[in-house]
């Protein structure tokens, strides 16, 4: 038996047992040697959890694999269904619908991005649809799905997938997982937080029953209030509600409406938007709205009037301020989940942000002497993630032609962040989308939303001409046909879901537990 160095932090305390708390506990208890680290999670059954993120992103597969979780077991435990994208309705204009897929649109032709050729051709043929050049979009529209293949040369490797899950069940699953790996769970409510006089860092939590929980390092997963990061350490909050004016949400569950769709729905309403998430056994529903433009009563009426099935739970009311904590990591405390900031679940980023934060924490797990430098880098990283996602979310509201309600008029004429303004103008003028190295949403995602909401470039790349278009025509025709044929061969999503949950014997093959990438599109 050998000892950890003295400078090593040993006792890690997690406050809060929702999705963020148990994901953190699971990752730390799996990845850190129990000989040197003790993981303690403090939660109270008396405090409800928000249960964020029923809709997830493909990165969750990567997270689960890192933890060694069997995909089939996970799917069954969380009543999961498959998600290959998000359908947005009424965003650019009332009646519009598009899908933001977890995959690409075509490939570059003669070193020029595919969409330049597409828009050049569309000028003369308005029937052309960008959607027809994305395998996951066509599959979603046909309620089809199959697991992507791994050979990068095949069209069927050009997409990824995520899940719709019951986040409460996921937290329960991870609780069992974490406790088996040695995490100690303490039931209790925090009464007070002790700070060290020497440096103001947290030394321990005093619970209502008098129990003291001491720790070297604390993870605040206490939700919006930020019991440690804000109430004790006063990290401060950067308010983004002037860019993203929705500040309330109502969530209810309903019966299933029939066949499970392989995508989440985000339907724009008069003062916000409604989500519909098809789980195996029920639908998750919610209305995210701006209280400045609709009151709670009318928001609830709107939501209930548009449920896909009978309501099966009482409404859960949430208030939030969109923004980020000025420092997610301060002294010996890192905030993960809602305590680190809030971005509405329009692009299902909540669980992604939890997982990204956990992975970065694992990468930068501090020792006593490098706590400050690691926190600086962590905050820089996390802030960058949040800023880039923020811009992408604002795009959905701002790139609209709608002025039919005060809410949409506000969104259309919003003064957007300069970073987004430059990005949008560049695309509108010459169709260029700046990719970045570190950030979640890359060219395919921006293209999906631009195109879906009617933002079209004025000019194509100068290399698009009749000669290169002739090559593009051939490629586009082939791609169109290949996608149609590939989708025709796919099982229905209903068959996949049945096969995943019911162990029925049929011809549908499940290619589970394939190596996942930390990517939205199935490729780096």
């Amino acid at each position, binding site marked *: 038996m050998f000892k950890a160095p003295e*400078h090593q932090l040993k006792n890690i305390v997690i406050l809060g047992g929702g999705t963020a708390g148990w994901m953190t506990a699971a990752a730390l208890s799996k990845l*850190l040697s129990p000989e040197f680290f003790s993981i303690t999670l403090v939660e109270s059954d008396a405090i409800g959890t928000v249960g964020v993120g029923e809709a997830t992103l493909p990165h969750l597969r990567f997270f689960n694999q890192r933890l060694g979780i069997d995909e089939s077991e996970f799917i069954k435990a969380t009543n999961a269904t498959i998600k290959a994208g998000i359908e947005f309705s009424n965003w650019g204009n009332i009646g519009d619908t598009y899908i933001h897929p977890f995959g690409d649109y075509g490939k570059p032709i003669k070193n020029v*991005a595919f969409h330049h050729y597409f828009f050049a051709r569309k000028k003369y043929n308005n029937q052309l649809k960008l959607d027809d050049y994305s395998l996951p979009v066509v599959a979603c529209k046909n309620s089809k799905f199959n697991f992507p293949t791994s050979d990068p040369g095949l069209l069927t490797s050009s997409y990824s997938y995520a899940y719709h899950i019951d986040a409460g069940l996921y937290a329960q699953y991870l609780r069992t997982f974490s406790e088996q790996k040695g995490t100690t769970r303490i039931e209790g409510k925090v009464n007070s937080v002790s700070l060290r006089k020497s440096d103001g860092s947290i030394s321990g939590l005093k619970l209502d029953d008098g129990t003291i929980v001491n720790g070297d390092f604390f993870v605040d997963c206490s939700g919006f209030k930020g019991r440690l990061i804000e109430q004790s350490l006063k990290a401060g909050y950067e308010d983004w509600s002037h860019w993203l004016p929705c500040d309330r949400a109502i969530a209810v569950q309903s019966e299933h409406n029939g066949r499970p769709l392989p995508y989440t729905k985000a339907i724009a309403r008069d003062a916000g938007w409604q989500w519909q998430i098809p789980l195996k056994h029920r639908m998750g529903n919610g209305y995210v709205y701006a209280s400045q433009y609709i009151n709670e009563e009318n928001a609830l009426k709107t939501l209930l009037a548009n449920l896909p099935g009978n309501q099966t739970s009482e409404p859960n009311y949430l208030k939030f301020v969109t923004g980020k904590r000025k420092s997610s990591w301060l002294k010996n405390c890192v905030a993960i989940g809602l305590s680190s900031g809030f971005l509405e679940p329009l692009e299902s980023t909540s669980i992604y942000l939890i997982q990204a934060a956990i992975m970065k924490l694992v990468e930068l797990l501090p020792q006593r002497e*490098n706590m400050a430098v690691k926190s600086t880098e962590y905050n820089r990283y996390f802030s960058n993630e949040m800023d880039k996602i923020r811009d992408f979310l604002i795009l959905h509201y701002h790139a609209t032609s709608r002025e039919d309600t005060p809410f949409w008029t506000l969104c259309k004429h919003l003064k957007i962040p300069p970073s987004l303004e430059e990005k949008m*103008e*560049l695309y509108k003028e*010459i169709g*260029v989308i700046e990719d970045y190295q570190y950030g979640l949403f890359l060219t395919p995602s921006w293209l999906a939303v631009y195109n879906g909401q009617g933002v079209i470039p004025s000019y194509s790349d*100068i*290399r698009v001409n009749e000669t290169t278009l002739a090559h593009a025509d051939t490629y586009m025709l082939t791609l169109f046909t290949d996608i149609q044929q590939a989708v025709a061969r796919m099982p229905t999503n209903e068959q996949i879901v049945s096969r995943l949950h019911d162990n029925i014997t049929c011809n549908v093959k499940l290619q589970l537990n394939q190596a996942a990438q930390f990517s939205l599109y199935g490729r780096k």
Partner: protein
Amino acid sequence: MTDTVAIKKVKVISGKHSALAGWYTAAMAAYALKDTEIAVFHVASDEEPVFSHGSLALQADVLLALQNLGLTESALVNHARAMPFLANKYMGWQGKKHVAFAGLAKTGVPLGGVNFVHYLARLRNETNNLNWRAELFSLNTICALVGTFAMPSGDPRSILSSLEYGLRVDAKLLCNLLKQVALELGKGSELHADAFDTEDQFSGRETITLDCRVSKEPTCKMLLDTFLIETSGLKESVPRVNNLSNEYECTDDGYVERQYVSGRQYVRKFFSRRFTKENKSLSGPFNECSEILLAPNTHDVWQHSLNTIYLFETGVHQLLDNGGLGYRTQQLNTLWPLLSGVNSSTLAANFFNRKSAERYRYWYDLALLPVFLCDRKDSEFWQLKAKLIEAEDLEYAISFYQRTGVFPQLEHYPADLGLIENTLLAFDKYPNASDPLSLAVEIGDLERKLTMLKQQIEQTAMQLPQFK
């Protein structure tokens, strides 16, 4: 947005000191625009070009771009005296006896998802044995040391898959090849400066100018301001064991770079005229020797009102062992999609200028990396260096690395910082702390594992054929 005018011509301008930059740019433009009606012209200087590099050390980024131009590895071997290199060798930077190698490939292999350097740092720290050095765990460095070479394997299970090589090429010969490519693809003829001055066919909004001459307006001072370049005769003997590495030797007033291409040795000595007044020349039988001033430094700039994009040949390009072609490749690849914005608003230009500035910071940092890392303070030059050198991002990255063993994610730095990491380790800048995940392996077990890995690498290197 204003009305647009179709671009009909791309005019590349180079000067006496930027022939390679000019022909590379012209060839890349000709290739990128080959399926268009746009003609590419190169207006070169009438004067005999002066090359700031005898040879260039090219890695995957540039080699891939050359391959697109039709300049395959075998073309470079046959027509530009290309030969592979595996590592950089540093001498005298951390004291007179300091000799260390930095390989091109990442050192060691990750264990349990944790970067190898954390285990190495842990072993060094816990055993107080500083003989555990990174270069012992790199097939690149050991092969460079013993002079053996084989092509890397594509099979990830093979130890040979851990080998990475670059190619050194003769700069003048590469320039000739690029000229051929540009003239074949460019649809335009080569023009000379005199001819251009009287031509008015190129003016106007139908023409884009890519000006590759040296910058005139310095935006930051260079510590080093001068260099000598010397070339050995074709049949001079070249020390065998140095064939596979480029040498960087620290001197009292700067440093000397030595590169080898087939049958020739190129030496460049960088120094500051502020401290070195006398005429310098290097020892040894060299056929050619010339002194060149380092150009002022500035990033590329798109001047929208003039339809001119300045792809400057600067001091950083002169310092970099790849001749700045890595930066130029990035810049040109960014430029082509933006060209449709040439005659519209300033958006494309502003975007280009922002990207240029961000990227330039990385290449500037890379060019000055060994100078920045050098701890010497035993001469006037090295004493002043600490005060003059400005590299905010590099300073942050190195400081963070030393304290954590992790590189910060900087958007304008490449994701793979393997060569930078190897250079830090060659300068004894090991992390002070290791990833707590590395504690999963018991120290004795770790020592055994690393010993086995070291032996495996040594044996493999010894069994490979000698490079000829």
